[in-house]
């Protein structure tokens, strides 16, 4: 399809619709419904060096137009992924991006090295933003300094395209994005889940066993669109928009806000073919408007600022 390709560093994506990390496992199950080779790519569930058991249940709770999760990065570890799951993805023709996790900077680097060496992994997405892994929901992505030092370090470990996934749980997401860019990121993706909590008022127990969880889904879309807008005005590298995307119109909001590509996450839970519908809808939108994808990126217009209050 002409006019839909997107470049992330040296990687050329077929089209701008990817599957978001943690929302499609390692791709096996969703491959029943979706031709992975027809999408821009799949970002697999976050991986550490070793397998992780994840958090105890209950792990999910539905909230108004959203959901909380505290999966806790359950996973099989990067080595088993490469051995056991990557072959099927390669065979299916998927563009594979690994969501890289680490408890330490060193572990981020190690996982990235493994990805760098594995054929069939096209890029890595550094998950510096998972709120589940460190005390009180903190993560490297909450500090400019840590983001910069971590990315610089990981950058040296890899010749493949490096995407940095940003946390929304920060005061100034554009500043963190800038640090990631300066550290050598080829792209930033955002947003990861927003830290949230819900309580069962009958028992007093939190709805997810770990107390806090990550909020995703349509509820957070306006936050994500805002952050993509802010970040795309602050960096020159491509921005990948994520957050509550359910249909093509949602995706186009992100393009207009400044994203070059999007990821579909929670929507896969409601509708296994959501990503295909998003892609088809983008194509027909562009056809109807007679535009190429890159002609709509960042085109949103702020209403009438001239009259507005200061700021």
């Amino acid at each position: 399809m002409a006019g839909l390709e997107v470049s992330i560093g040296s990687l050329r994506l077929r089209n701008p619709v990817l599957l978001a990390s943690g929302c499609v496992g390692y791709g096996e199950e969703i491959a029943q419904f979706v031709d992975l080779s027809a999408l821009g790519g799949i970002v697999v569930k976050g991986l550490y060096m070793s397998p992780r058991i994840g958090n105890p249940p209950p792990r999910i709770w539905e909230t108004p137009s959203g959901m909380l999760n505290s999966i806790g990065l359950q996973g099989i570890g990067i080595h088993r992924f490469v051995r056991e799951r990557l072959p099927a993805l390669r065979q299916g023709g998927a563009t594979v991006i690994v969501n890289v996790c680490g408890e330490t900077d060193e572990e981020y680097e190690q996982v990235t090295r493994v990805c760098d060496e594995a054929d069939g992994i096209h890029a890595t997405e550094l998950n510096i933003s998972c709120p589940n892994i460190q005390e009180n929901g903190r993560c490297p992505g909450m500090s400019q300094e840590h983001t910069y030092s971590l990315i610089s370090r990981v950058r040296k470990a890899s010749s493949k395209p490096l995407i940095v996934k940003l946390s929304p749980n920060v005061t100034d997401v554009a500043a963190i994005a800038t640090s990631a860019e300066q550290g050598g990121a080829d792209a930033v993706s955002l947003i990861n889940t927003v830290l949230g909590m819900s309580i069962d008022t009958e028992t007093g127990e939190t709805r997810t066993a770990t107390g806090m969880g990550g909020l995703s889904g349509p509820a957070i879309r306006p936050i994500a669109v805002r952050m993509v807008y802010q970040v795309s005005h602050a960096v020159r590298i491509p921005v990948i928009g994520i957050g509550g995307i359910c249909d093509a119109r949602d995706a186009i909001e992100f393009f207009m806000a400044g994203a070059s590509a999007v990821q579909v996450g929670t929507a896969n839970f409601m509708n296994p073919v959501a990503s295909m519908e998003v892609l088809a809808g983008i194509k027909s939108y562009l056809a109807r408007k007679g535009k190429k994808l890159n002609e709509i990126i960042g085109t949103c217009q702020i209403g009438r600022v001239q009259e507005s209050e200061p700021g």
Partner: protein
Amino acid sequence: MAHYMRGMVTAVRPVKEYVRLSIKAERIAEEMQPGQFAMISAGTEPLLPRPFSIAHVDRGVLSFIFQDVGRGTGMLASLRVGDSVRLLGPLGKPFRVDVGDRPVMVAGGRGIAPFFELARRLSGRSPLLFYGGRTQAQIIETGFFVRLCSEIIVSTEDGGMGHKGFITEPFAEYLAKSTPPVIYACGPHAMLRRVAEIAGSVPTELSMEARMACGYGICIGCVIPTGREGYRRVCLDGPVFSGDEIRWQDLK
């Protein structure tokens, strides 16, 4: 292989404390095996689909029996004939049906749902049904099971119908004298746990519940603690588990 499709509501009616919802969805009906479930969404609110055991299958129509306990089930209860819903199914690991004679089914409340189709598949093997509820309003007419089962034992906690007490009591008495080839059970976790204890070394096929987001294995949200492999997904690795796989003490 699961299908994601639209289905049309062909009937909605109250059945004692439950609602029976019938939906035309041929492809799912054709492939469904007892113990499997479907995810159902009636609109955009609530966001996530809800899982329900497939109770009956008849000429392309799936029937579900559910309790109205919240937003999702409330929405389904207010559906009307002709409405369209989205379905994903059939999902999950079904019950084993290649078993010996006189297998036992233990149902608690709405846990009766998957046993309609199971009883049909087992009918040559003279299955027994133990069926308990809190009150008689939780016990659906057992006429359907009469022609398929060799025995039906009913109990209610308040004694309003059948034995007074938990269904696990007559079940335990039966097990003290007999050794069925397998015990199927579906109901509250406390009941399932008790069934697993009583079963001892008799194989169990327990249909477990967990809050689900996707229903088809991609979110890892619906896990329960198992001995062998840690947290396993109820939707894909289950919902049917063997009682000795489950770490009951860690199950909430």
